[in-house]
């Protein structure tokens, strides 16, 4: 199939042997995992390059995208959460509606609308690509819109979580004590309440990293950025299975790594959970 309609029987047999398709399924699987263990992800069927090189080239773009997206989500999410937990009712109501809207709208649509408004109409940001390689300012400039599109839903999630847990924390005794000592509200919020209130939000980030990677598929396609999501998308459409499976294995490893990082972060922030580790 990969050789085109004019392939001879001999070419076909040679190809099948090279790909190892003449071995049993079990043996193929075993060889895949055995090579995986030494870091060999196989070779691209079409170009003959090693999959590890392709994935390695795409990985930094996707990680940058996901981390920046999370950055937006954490910054704006915590900010919105604090606003909503404040004394003003209308602000609470407004933030609640906006966060639900952020969560509801599909990320690829957000990406398209961002592209339309900020790139096509306003020309503030480039519409395609990841900026000039090596030029940090241009790369950061090209990262703004895609990362916002990726992180928008998470702004909503985190805002709601932070609001709920902040309201709970503010009822507690140590906050009451701080108030009794006459500390200013600002100090109480940032020094005593917020560090406790963000813990549930952080644990959600780890679980949500997978969804964030899925979202990056769309952002990478809409903004024509290089990255893992685009690599997998194209590999699957071209039926380039070694590339697709290699990239998916790396994604799974990333996901597991993110889970581990969040567990460690929680252990640092919340001494109570250290006993469970």
């Amino acid at each position, binding site marked *: 199939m990969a050789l085109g309609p004019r392939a001879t029987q001999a070419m076909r047999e040679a190809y099948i042997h090279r790909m190892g398709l003449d071995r049993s399924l079990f043996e193929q699987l075993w060889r895949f995992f055995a090579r995986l263990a030494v870091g060999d992800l196989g070779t691209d069927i079409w170009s003959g390059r090693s999959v590890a090189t392709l994935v390695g080239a795409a990985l930094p773009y996707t990680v940058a995208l996901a981390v920046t997206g999370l950055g937006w989500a954490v910054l704006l999410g915590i900010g919105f959460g604090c606003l909503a937990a404040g004394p003003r009712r209308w602000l609470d109501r407004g933030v609640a509606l906006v966060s639900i809207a952020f*969560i509801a709208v599909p990320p690829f649509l957000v990406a398209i609308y961002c592209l339309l408004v900020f790139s096509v109409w306003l020309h503030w940001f480039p519409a395609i690509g990841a900026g000039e390689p090596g030029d940090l300012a241009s790369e950061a400039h090209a990262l703004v819109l895609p990362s916002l599109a990726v992180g928008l839903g998470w702004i909503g999630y985190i805002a709601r979580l932070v609001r709920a847990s902040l309201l709970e924390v503010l009822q507690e005794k140590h906050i009451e004590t701080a108030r009794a000592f006459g500390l200013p509200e600002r100090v109480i919020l940032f020094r005593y309440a917020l560090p406790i209130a963000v813990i549930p939000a952080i644990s959600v980030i780890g679980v949500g990293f997978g969804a964030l990677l899925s979202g990056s598929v769309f952002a990478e396609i809409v903004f024509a950025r290089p990255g893992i999501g685009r690599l997998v998308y194209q590999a699957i459409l071209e039926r380039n299975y070694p590339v697709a499976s290699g990239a998916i294995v790396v*994604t799974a490893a990333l996901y597991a790594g993110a889970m581990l990082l969040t567990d460690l972060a929680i252990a640092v922030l919340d001494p109570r959970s250290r006993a469970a580790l």
Partner: protein
Amino acid sequence: MPRFSAPLRFLQRIAADPAGLFGLVVAVLFTIVALLSNEISPYDPAHIAVIHRLEGPSRAHLLGTDQLGRDTLSRILVGSRTALGVSVVSILLAATIGAPLGLLAGYGPRWFGTVLLLLLDIVNSLPMIMFALALLVLVGPGFWTVVGVIAFFSVPGYARLIRAQTLSLGQSGFILAARAMGAGLGRILFVHLLPNAMGALLVVVTMDIPSVIGLEAGLSFLGIGIQPPTPSWGSILNDGFSFIRNTPDLVIFAGLPLVATTIGFTFLGERLRQILQPKAAP
């Protein structure tokens, strides 16, 4: 009319909140439009008239035309039918598979529950979009593949929900009473437990509709969802995306109903949660 007053009062309570009212209006409008789309759309959504390609809004074509001269309004209207069809069928499928599994996991033998939870965790940890991509290419895209993929990834949510409900209800007095009266497992599960889990199920279904609609549109946008000539909001967006620089109308008009329905159903779900599960509401 005491028989009618209860549902009516329920609707009134939903509409008492502006966001709930918005959600209710969107949900009703979306359903009516989707059901009547073939009757109310001004043109045949698949009628090609290349002379009129990529026209802006005019009196003849209220929302303009696409790159093949097809009427955008008609395509969006009929696209709502696709969105409704995919969400209803895949959610029904996921709920009919997930609910019995959840009931058994919560009330049946313990080993079954443990094994099931493990399987559900595995499904949950698969990178969904990538898995969907692979499956759609292998099986071939189409309505049933899209429904199958979405249902497959929605089953864990329903099974977990019903399991949690079953666990919390399983120890309550009326279940013990039913057991003491010698009711069988099937009777306890379907006559006593399931109806009591319905409120929570309704909330989750309402909240699930926007994500299913978004997912279908996303897959169709990537070209691996609903295939032409059947119009879908996602494929209209894909068509429009190719011409975003010169004729953004297509993208704008096809995106707005998607924004409205996803936000509307989510608001409705939030409101239902406030009413049906006051304790769980944040």
